[in-house]
């Protein structure tokens, strides 16, 4: 699943970063994570989520602008009980690069 969850930044002069979230796998997790962006007015460009092989956890990939609110966004994410870990990657991370052809 990949979707636009918030208005893009008007002047998107900011670098993008890719965030990798390890979360508990149950039916409400996507609501918790997606709701947070809309509610806190964070700009998120894309979301991708799949369960991990053990079935107990899922991984969520996000692409976001690294504006001055990124730190706050990460802290808000870490505050969610079902978010177990947040890792940062550069914008060139292959997970979204490979998906690009589906969004032409």
């Amino acid at each position, binding site marked *: 699943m990949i979707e636009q969850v918030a208005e893009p930044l008007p002047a998107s002069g900011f670098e993008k970063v890719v965030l990798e979230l390890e979360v508990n796998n149950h*039916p409400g997790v996507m609501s*918790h994570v997606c709701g947070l962006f809309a509610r806190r007015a964070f700009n998120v460009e894309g979301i991708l989520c799949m369960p991990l092989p053990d079935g107990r956890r899922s991984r969520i990939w996000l692409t976001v602008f690294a504006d001055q609110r990124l*730190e*706050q966004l990460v*802290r808000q994410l870490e*505050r969610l*009980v*079902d978010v177990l870990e947040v890792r940062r990657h550069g914008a060139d991370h292959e997970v979204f690069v490979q998906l690009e052809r589906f969004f032409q």
Partner: protein
Amino acid sequence: MMTMTGAELIVRLLEQQGIETIVGIPGGAILPLYDALSQSKRIRHVLARHEQGAGFMAQGMARVTGKPAVCFASSGPGATNLVTAIADARLDSIPLVAITGQVPLAMIGTDAFQEVDIYGMTIPITKHNFLVRSAAELLEVIPQAFRIAMSGRPGPVLVDVPKDVQNQLVTFERLPVPAVPDPLPPLDEPAIAAAARLIDEAERPVLYLGGGVIHADAAPLAVTLAEQTAMPTTMTLMALGAMPVDHPLSLGMLGMHGARYTNFVLQEADLLVCVGARFDDRAIGKASQFCPEAKVIHIDIDRAELGKIRRPDVAIHGDVKAVLQALLPRVRAQLRKRWLSHVAGLKSRFPLVLEGREDPRSHYGLVQAVAKALDDEAVVVTDVGQHQMWVAQAYPLRRPRQWLTSGGLGTMGFGLPAAIGAALAEPQRTVVCFTGDGSLKMNIQEMATLAEEGGNVKIVLMNNQSLGLVYQQQNLFYGKRVIASNYRRPTDFVKIAEGFGLEALDLDRSEHPEADLAAILRRPGPALIHCSIERERFVYPMVPPGAANTEMIEG
């Protein structure tokens, strides 16, 4: 091995968590749980008259004790009626566990009778929430709910339990151990050392205390820090009582309705030591002009608060009590005579003026007459509006957890049920609930609960026949175009209170108001004290919404 229903399991888990009082209202989808509760010898149930009242009663219990409290509601409208009380608990960081009934699992998503997605609805307003899908999950979910509610920054947790899960049999070896709060975060020693240096070097520091100081039971330590380092101390609405208001270092409340000198002192500060506060807009006014010359030390248990509004020079993530304990031996004892005498000068030039304080039938006078008749053991609850600000300004609060008010959400209707909750949890105390005629009407049905339970709650009603704070704003900022803020017909509150079975005193008709007031406050049991006040009395000083704190207006 033990076998019981999900409902019986919930009751057992609540009992072993130490819950003694649950407030709620039954309905179809939660009847199995109520049936199980009927067999409990340790938990008493208090029947509210509206689920919002139940939520606020539970909040009152939690606010006065600091421990998580529980409320029950049925599915659909029962659950949606809890929403405001849950949102209020979230914004003020109150540990609350709300348990709702839900339609049976197989009917979820079918628009069944009294079905709403309360799980989805409460995601933004809970610290965490659960939709329980099997009775076995309860073994984990109920202790988790309590652990989450009371760990770190406290908050509300909702557990939605479908009716068939309540009836489902579950077999298990032993009950899980009762939940305890998570361990505190490790002390950030380098940050604490850096903070100590800033405090030692500062010439004009101010200590800024928030509700986190109350939640962490850190008020005595905060006072010690202020005394040791001679830091003038201001409190947010949520922190009132952390430092006695007549303490020589107290600056009282800051912000929109703070004293002028308080906001001027902050303006000149070169260091702001923020402890368990969150730079709320009603406290700091226009963020870019708040404490413009100050470096900032920010101590908070919630990392997301550090840097959310104001970038701190030193950020300390940690339990404020543990951090203050570690900080105290590291800061130099100081007198700061110059700064304190400058502060005293500002205080005498721009004091808080409590007009009419001698007249027990005026707004400030009534607050002070009530205070005079009571001691510091009393609990002071307010509703939301002008009366709330007058009480915050004029009541001599001296004790943490003496003061219960809806700060973040500002919920009219909070007062009466929260006061009943406080009286249920601490029946030895007198609980006084200051309210306005607008607020009281929003949960007035709880007078029936109060009469039934006989709690020692005194409702002090300041009646100005209007939604006073709205009326005030329309007069000050909307060209006196008054709309929808005045009540055209008076309400006979005395008759209403008596109708519900409460004792009532009408100060308007009293020949000896002060004596009558003192007498009724000292008589145990619930009562309404009614007093008409002038509609044209506004709350001053006032920082216009969006303005800087130094741009206060006076009456």
